[in-house]
């Protein structure tokens, strides 16, 4: 069997401050022992969700090769990102593309939109002639529901945020990568325009076989388009499974709190309980041993402090939660 397109093995990223005159050295574990596999077939959208500080953007940065891992590996078709030569890296960058959060910041305001496309066609030598290039651009724009005559000669400021983000999707389509890392692609776009971008993601998946790492804090858009979901809490996975499993039946106490806290768009269903947040220091000082969610967990046990719980299988269908509450079920599961 061919190796998966992208495999992340036990990735750990620790940020260290060098320590100053009066400040001691500090270590922040942004990502701990994280593993993920994205298979070539079928193409899928994997959501990485979590609150700020959960390590989701760190994950995007290490996958895109912006920062090296502290330990662990990222394998692309079985080859380690850290040992790639120049040619292989160029190939990797071509096949693992990014769409970022801010549709305003990624454009150079001095250039027309066509410049975005010309640059990638030139850089990756995608077309043999000018007319071929024009056809390719038009094709790519059509996939995201735009037309060349409407946008190519315009400047970025003349387009809406939603259009700009879709042009980024079209740019990525042109390159035809195998994986797209989409870091909060819809969070700065108005709700009524988000659907068009999410739709563009779905058509890239279904028509081109592109897999996505969809990084977001918004569970509701993930629920609409995501195939699988990984919910991170302070650098490690709290729960993973198919999007429907995890959001319909959250198992980890943190994920339960998270899902319940999404405001229901229905005036007849109001929040019924008040919740308290423990103090910030207690949250952040959670040690590297033990469960990171311990200070906030309503169902905590003494053993949670000793060793962090591994992922336990919930139902034998790929739904896993990192919580000792499910240890028994996991032991029963193999027998079935």
């Amino acid at each position, binding site marked *: 069997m061919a190796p998966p397109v992208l495999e992340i093995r036990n990735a750990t990223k620790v940020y260290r401050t060098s320590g100053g005159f009066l400040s001691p050295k500090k270590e922040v574990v942004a990502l701990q022992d994280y593993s993920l596999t994205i298979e070539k077939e079928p193409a899928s959208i994997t959501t990485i969700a979590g609150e700020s500080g959960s390590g989701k953007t760190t994950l995007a940065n290490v996958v895109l090769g912006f920062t090296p891992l502290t330990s662990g590996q990222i394998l692309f078709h079985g080859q380690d990102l850290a040992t790639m030569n120049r040619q292989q890296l160029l190939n990797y960058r071509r096949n693992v593309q990014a769409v970022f959060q801010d549709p305003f910041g990624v454009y150079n305001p001095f250039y027309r939109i066509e410049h975005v496309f010309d640059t990638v066609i030139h850089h990756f030598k995608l077309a043999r002639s000018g007319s071929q290039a024009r056809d390719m651009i038009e094709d790519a724009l059509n996939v995201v529901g735009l037309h060349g005559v409407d946008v190519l000669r315009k400047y970025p400021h003349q387009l809406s945020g939603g259009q700009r983000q879709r042009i980024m999707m079209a740019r990525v389509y042109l390159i035809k990568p195998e994986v797209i890392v989409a870091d909060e692609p819809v969070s700065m776009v108005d709700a009524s325009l988000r659907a068009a971008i999410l*739709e563009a993601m779905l058509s890239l998946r279904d028509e081109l076989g592109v897999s996505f790492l969809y990084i977001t804090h918004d569970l*509701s858009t993930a629920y609409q388009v995501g195939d699988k979901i990984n919910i991170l809490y302070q650098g490690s996975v709290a729960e993973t499974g198919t999007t*429907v499993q995890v959001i319909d039946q959250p198992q980890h106490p943190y994920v339960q709190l998270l899902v319940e806290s999404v405001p229901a768009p*229905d005036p007849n269903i109001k929040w019924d309980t008040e919740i308290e947040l423990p103090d910030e220091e207690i949250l952040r000082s959670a040690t590297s041993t033990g469960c990171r969610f311990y200070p906030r967990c309503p169902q905590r046990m003494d053993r949670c402090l000793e060793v962090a719980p591994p992922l336990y299988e919930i139902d034998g269908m790929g739904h896993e939660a990192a919580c000792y509450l499910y240890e028994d079920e996991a032991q029963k599961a193999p027998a079935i």
Partner: protein
Amino acid sequence: MAEASGQDVQRRQRKVLEVRNLRVHYETPTGDVIAVAGIDFDLYDGETLGLVGESGSGKSTAAYGILKLVQPPGRIVEGNVVLDGDELVTMNDSNFRQLRWTKLALIPQGAMNSLNPTMRVHRQITDAIEAHEGKQDKEELRQRVLDLFRMVGLPQRLYNMFPHELSGGMKQRVCIAMGIALHPTVIIADESTSALDVVVQRVVAQTMLRVKKALGVSMIMIGHDMGLMAQMVDRIAVMYAGKLVEVSPVETIFEDPLHPYSQVLIESIPSLKERKPLKITEGITHDPRNPPPGCIFQLRCPFVMEHCRSEAPPLREVKARHQVACHLYNDDGSLIEGVKVEAAV
């Protein structure tokens, strides 16, 4: 709840804030951008009104217009804002300064950037108090600040801290504490929770609800998250391109939105209950310097009629407490003849 409702209803009929034909323009070299194009609404005693719309719809500008915080090149072109009988737009600055915080308070959008980084948390609050009430007894002031902390659920140990030592949710709660410090009549909360994580957002939102209830203030909540609006507000006013297109009780608008734009807004709320096909709407709007004649939504409206391109529909009450600005409806809220709207429902 039940015994208080009679009194509640009476209170709810008293207007505390009346906004009439408020217009705010931003001057640019190529003509004025019409950010708020003449809006009218009332805020009743004790109610929370949600002002929603996409970015650029003028919702924040409208709030800044009410607070007289519009900065050049923006200016209030015309209109009246009456707060408890006082006309604000024409009031001189020194009188208006007296009303800020005591009658009209703002909880700003980015709490991260609205606290003074060089001042300890308690000083930010006592500063506002002393600016209005003059020098105070130290111990009394300290008690007042601690009472405010208790109200918004902040621990006492924050008293001497600096803003950078607090998390986003705590800073936001400090801003709420400042907002309520002088018992204002009206609080305007501008996207107060949109930069926070879901769980923290819920804590802050619930704090706001609790405080509002305890003090009986009226509130205008500006935002774009319809889910949060459903949790927090009594009435919703939908803004599009500088105009109010629909004003309605929150339950009604979620059940039966009338304006085509409100329908888009309600339908595009992603649900955690069911996976449904995404509904795509085109996002092309007109040039804000030069709005087309007629209805402002005509370029995006799926039901646009000849009539809409020439005559702007006024905001009018078509059902009980339910106002809409759309030619599709008769005065009694029924659809005009010959129109099929089932596609949107």
